[in-house]
């Protein structure tokens, strides 16, 4: 039995199940050297070009940036910085169509090149092997290196693995038809690539390096073999051409015969895989301190009359590249970013090149005929034969069409790598991969929603428990308070008693608030159609409000004692109840008071009551609109109660609440006044102005309601 390494040395590789042999058509571009294109008029640099989080934007509009200057930082572990691809001026920071299948707009930094192409200061590390792993990783992150293979996974995270790595696999397979970007890169920059591989090996501590290249790239193989030399001991593995041997999982299987366990990463079985383009970028970033600002892009397809590979600055609009390769669009022209198997169509040529764009394919309708109408599945099973993940695509499409997500999961839909081999062979032209993508996205959303609902439930229950606890505490205090009340004077006036208690001690404030609240509720609970009682109740409430303010002013220092906060909360509760009472009262004044009063009468302190209150509020508001006329007169008075207490925001809130009530006061000139006040803000008066603004808004709200009512 030969060992794994012996097998690899002798070129005896494994095979993965399935796979297809589509025409590769790489000869269109593989013979031409990588070309340079002139600077585009404007660059749209998306701030997110990788998987992970976005760093903070470091530049602002109008700022001049140098080539390679960081546009976002990389503070978080998952951040990857982006850089100015050339020197120029930041024209705008705005949303621009993204290089994503959805084409949803994404935040881009638009840079207008100044043509000087002036570099920022760089600090080359020629002796890169003398730097620590941490230093190297940090530099990779700051220089914006992310996987150039397709997913854009941050390289510094992949390389930071602490697992014991046996194999570092360099993926130079490039199995996708048409694309020759890696091929050309290997032909032209083999030394830099080898340097990058050395750095990657240094960081991951891999024992062996395997470079996997398909045998349809003889020039690249020769170049890499020559650059590797003999003493390094890297294994250059020539693999038979087969799609999708460049898939991460498939390449692991071909080279080592191992399988990445379900839901795991290659590091779990001692393997790290990097794309050959990433190796090049690593070498540039570490050795030359040159951030990832450009990449090789294959411009190919029969609608492009000078197909070739170009060096494209990240952020270059595709249209600019097309201008330099003699692009002649046909009818129903498709513009594909990526290869013909996994690439996605672009709705517009304005899409910018990003770190993961390796190819722009503009096929004629003869070479890649447009999709034909879908026919029924005849269960021929060809898709299952070619599936590299050994799934059963014909069953999956059946369940995907039926939206049977449970079945889809049991048939391991999540393990589909979306390589497109099944759709490629399907005689019925079923867009299988599209069905899977839709189903996957739907499953993901459902899972997220389920999770969110679960979380909401937990939070709701936690809140309910808290409210219940508070209520118990409140009842306890109330009981104490009533005991205390009995022990003091015979004064039956609850309000007076409450005020006096507030003056006595800060802790009693809460109880006082509750007492007040009770007092407020009293009139509504005893409601009867008799109008005089309502007026009396209102009177009492006004009195109480004044007293409350008084107590506030004369009470203990706000924000000093811990109990004050509690008191504030209680006060807020009291206010809420006051509002409830008020609304009930207002509606009482109308003819539709019956159901309101009965609802209010049955109210309790728990959550249920609040919901009911919300309904009552809604009804009351409606009633209020209809009857604003009659209410207006009574509401003039409270307005004058607005005192000069400006420090206490609570008081201000009360004022506003009253103002809100004051329907008739919301005159246009009042609003104008508030606005002028708000406009000439001086730092000291800011607060004042804010309050005024709030008042004005409240007034406006009322006014609008009146207007609405007027229209009615």
């Amino acid at each position, binding site marked *: 039995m030969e060992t794994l390494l012996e097998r690899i040395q002798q070129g005896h590789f494994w095979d993965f199940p399935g796979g297809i042999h589509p025409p590769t058509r790489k000869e269109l571009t593989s013979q031409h050297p990588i070309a340079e294109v002139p600077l585009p008029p404007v660059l749209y640099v998306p701030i997110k070009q990788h998987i992970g989080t976005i760093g903070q934007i470091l530049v602002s509009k109008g700022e001049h940036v140098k080539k390679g200057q960081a546009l976002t930082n990389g503070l978080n572990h998952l951040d990857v910085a982006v850089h100015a691809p050339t020197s120029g001026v930041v024209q705008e920071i705005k949303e621009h*169509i*993204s290089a*994503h*299948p*959805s*084409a*949803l707009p994404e935040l881009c930094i638009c840079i207008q090149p100044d043509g000087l192409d002036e570099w920022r200061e760089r600090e080359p590390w020629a002796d890169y092997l003398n730097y620590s792993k941490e230093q190297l990783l940090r530099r990779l992150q700051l220089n914006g290196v992310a996987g150039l293979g397709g997913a854009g996974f941050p390289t510094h995270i992949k390389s930071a693995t602490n697992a014991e790595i046996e194999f570092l696999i360099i993926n130079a397979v490039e199995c996708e038809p048409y694309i020759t970007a890696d091929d050309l890169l290997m032909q032209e920059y083999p030394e830099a690539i080898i340097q990058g591989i050395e750095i990657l090996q240094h960081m991951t501590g891999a024992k062996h390096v395997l470079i996997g290249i398909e045998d349809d790239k003889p020039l690249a193989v020769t170049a890499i073999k020559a650059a590797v030399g003999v003493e390094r001991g890297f294994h250059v593995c020539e693999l038979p051409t087969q799609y999708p041997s460049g898939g991460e999982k498939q390449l692991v299987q071909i080279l080592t015969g191992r399988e990445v366990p379900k839901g795991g990463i290659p590091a779990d079985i001692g393997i790290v895989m990097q794309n050959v383009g990433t190796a090049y970028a690593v070498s540039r970033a570490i050795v030359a301190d040159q951030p990832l600002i450009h990449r090789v892009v294959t411009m190919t397809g029969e609608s492009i009359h000078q197909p070739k590979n170009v060096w494209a600055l990240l952020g270059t609009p595709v249209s600019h590249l097309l201008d330099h390769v003699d692009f002649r669009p046909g009818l129903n022209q498709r513009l594909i970013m990526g290869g013909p198997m996994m690439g996605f169509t672009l*709705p*517009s*040529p*304005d899409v910018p090149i990003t770190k993961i764009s390796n190819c722009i394919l503009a096929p004629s309708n003869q070479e890649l005929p447009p999709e034909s109408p879908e026919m029924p599945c005849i269960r021929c099973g060809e898709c299952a034969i070619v599936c590299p993940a050994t799934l059963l695509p014909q069953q999956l499409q059946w369940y995907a069409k039926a939206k049977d997500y449970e079945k889809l999961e049991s048939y391991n839909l999540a393990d589909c790598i979306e390589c497109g081999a099944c759709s490629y062979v399907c005689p019925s032209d079923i867009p299988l991969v*599209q069905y899977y*993508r*839709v189903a996957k*996205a739907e499953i*993901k*959303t459902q899972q*997220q*929603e389920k999770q*969110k*609902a*679960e*979380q*909401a*439930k937990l*939070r*709701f229950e*936690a*809140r*309910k428990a808290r409210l219940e606890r508070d209520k118990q505490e409140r009842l306890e205090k109330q009981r104490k308070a009533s005991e205390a009340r009995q022990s003091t004077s015979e004064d039956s006036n609850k309000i007076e008693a409450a005020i006096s208690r507030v003056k006595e001690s800060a802790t009693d404030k809460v109880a006082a608030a509750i007492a007040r609240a009770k007092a407020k509720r009293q009139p509504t609970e005893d409601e009867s159609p008799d109008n005089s009682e309502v007026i009396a109740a209102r009177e009492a409430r006004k009195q109480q409000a004044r007293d409350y303010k008084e107590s506030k002013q004369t009470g203990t220092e706000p924000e000093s004692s811990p109990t004050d*906060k509690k008191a*504030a*909360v209680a006060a*807020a*509760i009291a*206010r*809420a109840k006051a509002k409830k009472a008020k609304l009930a009262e207002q509606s009482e004044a109308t003819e539709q008071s019956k159901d309101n009063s009965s609802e209010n009468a049955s109210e309790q302190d*728990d*959550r*249920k009551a*609040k*919901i*009911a209150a*919300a*309904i009552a*509020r*809604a009804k009351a508001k409606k009633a209020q609109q209809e009857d604003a006329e009659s209410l207006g007169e009574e509401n003039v008075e409270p307005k004058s109660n607005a005192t000069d207490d400006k420090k206490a*925001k*609570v008081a201000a*809130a009360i004022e*506003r*609440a009253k103002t*809100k009530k004051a329907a008739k006061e919301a005159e246009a000139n009042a609003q104008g006044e508030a606005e002028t006040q708000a406009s000439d803000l001086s730092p000291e008066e800011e607060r004042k102005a*804010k*309050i005024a*603004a*709030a008042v004005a*808004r*409240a007034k406006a*709200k009322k006014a609008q309601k009146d207007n609405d009512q007027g229209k009615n």
Partner: protein
Amino acid sequence: MTIIYALIALGVLALVFGAVLGFAAVRFKVEADPLVEQIDAILPQTQCGQCGYPGCRPYAEAIANGDEINKCPPGGESTIKELANLMGVEPKPLDDAHGQEDVKKVAYIREDECIGCTKCIHACPVDAIVGATRQMHTIIIDECTGCDLCVDPCPVDCIDMVPLKPKAESWKWDLESIPVKVVE
């Protein structure tokens, strides 16, 4: 006589089978979630109260006790279908009296207008609003269920319900929805 034998035989058989069935019912009892739990798991947990009950669980209890299944606008048609499936009844269209099914929204506080009254905090059923008295409040978007309950209590109307912005990560591969740009 034969009739009596027949009757005795049948009676014995009935007893034996009854005993076997009874034993099986006890021995192989399947412990399913109580109905209320199952219903509650289907409901969207927005706790919005649009159904007329103070939260999702109370509504789940009401459904278990025979209330209609079509009172949940946030859950919409899919929830009604699932409930109908669970309860073994015909799905019905959403009851308009409780609201319309809408795109998913979250509350958003215009922060410079907030006066710090804490009213919305008290209204929020899932404690998704952060803030203190006289301090600016803000909403934790990830926790907001879009229940709408905070909008009404706000005295200065600084809370808006805004639809969630589509994100590339949560895009559902609806190729038809991509706006195609017309170039020259």
